[in-house]
């Protein structure tokens, strides 16, 4: 009797775990379904090539926001990739040192800082002194969010590179720098690129750090010292507006964002799978 009760409890537990998975997948399906259904209605060529129209005029697009997001992400990468990769190299090369632990701690801390706080910080250092919202400030905020992701990915992947490769290079008389840059980094490069793509996917969807750094702009700009539009901030502006046509545009923007993120994740997954295959072979 007692045994039977234990068996039933066990069965219920298994059912609960399976149900949890379903429970999490329901919102996922629900969200994707709505984004696709609502987004596809406003998504057409015009959305990608034309500018936002004033309230009341139907149509228009987010060309300036799309370009803005690309510029901001590009600026972020420009800033984050060198710092991220080099910090990663230091952490893996001098893994036992106190400095490496400090960098690791800083990276993990930065990774946990709410994005809105990073926005406030960048406002203080890059907007307030110049009394001007700018693309540079927005890029800086996104870059700060990318650094810890890139640094930790680089570290992990460099540690995966077989020790013998590094030793081979050193045995041939290479300096440490030469061994790292010519042998170890290239071996880990595909993985690091995957990490960078994932980091990009994540920050391209960020809104909070841009609200008061790059702000928003109704016009098409590529000037780095001016406020610039971005997909996320534009979707936010449209979503909280009372206009139906803007809501449709917001959904279309959301669809573009989700597709972007999905594409990056799939690409990254494909790349890592290939990598794992190589490692096994």
């Amino acid at each position, binding site marked *: 009797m007692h045994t039977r009760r*234990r068996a039933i*409890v*066990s069965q219920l*537990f*298994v059912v609960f*775990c399976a*149900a*949890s*998975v379903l*429970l*999490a*997948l329901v919102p*996922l399906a629900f*969200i994707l379904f*709505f*984004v696709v259904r609502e987004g596809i209605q406003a998504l057409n060529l015009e959305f990608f090539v034309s500018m936002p129209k004033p309230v009341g005029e139907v149509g228009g697009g987010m060309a300036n926001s799309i370009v803005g997001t690309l510029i901001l992400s590009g600026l972020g990468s420009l800033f984050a990739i060198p*710092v991220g990769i*080099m*910090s990663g190299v*230091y*952490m893996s090369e*001098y893994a036992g040192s106190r*400095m490496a632990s*400090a*960098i690791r701690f*800083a990276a993990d*801390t*930065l990774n*946990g*800082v*709410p*994005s809105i*706080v*990073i926005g*406030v*910080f960048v406002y*203080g*250092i890059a907007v*307030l002194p110049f009394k001007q919202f700018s693309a540079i400030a927005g890029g800086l905020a996104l870059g*700060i969010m990318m*650094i810890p992701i890139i*640094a930790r990915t680089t570290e992990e992947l460099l540690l995966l590179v077989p020790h013998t490769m590094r030793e081979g290079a050193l045995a041939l008389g290479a*300096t*440490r*720098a030469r061994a790292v840059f010519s042998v170890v980094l290239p071996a880990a490069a595909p993985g690091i690129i995957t990490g960078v793509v994932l980091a990009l996917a994540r920050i391209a*969807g*960020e*809104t*909070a750090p841009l*609200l*008061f750094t790059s*702000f928003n702009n109704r016009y098409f700009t590529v000037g780095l010292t001016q406020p610039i539009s971005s997909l*996320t901030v534009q*979707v*936010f502006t449209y*979503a909280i507006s009372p206009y139906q046509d803007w809501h449709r545009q917001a959904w279309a923007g*959301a669809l573009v*964002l*989700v597709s972007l*993120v999905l594409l990056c994740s799939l690409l990254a997954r494909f790349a890592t799978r290939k990598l794992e295959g190589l490692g096994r072979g």
Partner: protein
Amino acid sequence: MQWARKDLGFRISTGLFGLVLISIVAAIGVELTRQSWLSISKFGFAFWRTQTWDPVAGEFGALPFIWGTLYSSIIALLIATPVALGIAIFIAELCPARFRQPLVFLTELLAAIPSIVYGLWGIFVLVPLVRQFQVALPDPLRVLPIFSGPPFGVGMLSAALILAIMVVPFTSSVAREVLKSVPRTQREAAYALGATRFEAIRTALYYARTGIIGAIMLGFGRALGETMAVTMVIGNNPQVSLSLFAPQHTMAAVIANEFTEAADDLYLHALIEIGLVLFIITLIINSLSRLLLWTIGRPGKAIPKRTPTPVQATAA
């Protein structure tokens, strides 16, 4: 000799980039303190005890924001934790190997969806559902403080639900890793003693308890700092209320909403002080959770080393 110097140069130059990383974190703390000094020096601790938020009169009390942030995150955690642990256990222990990767991918997709998209979905899909739910609630329940208030749709429950969905993938992926680090021998020993599946997994959970708590706290840290999705559905009304249906506010949301409107310095400094405290709270929560995960993350170090008996050697 020359090589040694070159190696030192390499160490210094890569180290400088690492130093940039460290100084960013330090600079965030310093800069936020500096930029909120007016508010810190004027209100002191009263800032966190008072409830009046009246920018026009220059009165700033941040209690409603702290309350909203903690209340929404805790409710979200109560909903998300069982589900996240269930997912982690299902993927790590129960599901057939060929479903494992696809399931991991799908749950991680939840983490990849931008928070603005969650917010948009929240406004147009979730909020109306919550409103319907509230209207359909039987009258006797509505007199309870947690269910009181008119049906707006936007409010605490909508925010907590969205947060719960967003937190699940974080907690579950860390918990999954933690479960993976539990030695197989733990479960095998339990099975050998005649344990059921549930009892064996419970043993593994108990073994990994610090790590599991770490995973939950990591989710908590995420929930505390979440901005966009919350600000779009919580109603943005600074009040301290127990009601799940009352429009409230959070620390992150008030910054996002009012920062560009802050006309005078004191207002701006008050908002930045909220940012500073949010920074400190998440710093503490994340450090604690990493500390807990760290002890379990290295199985070799967490468990005192013993010379493996032949049985253990084959099991490993």
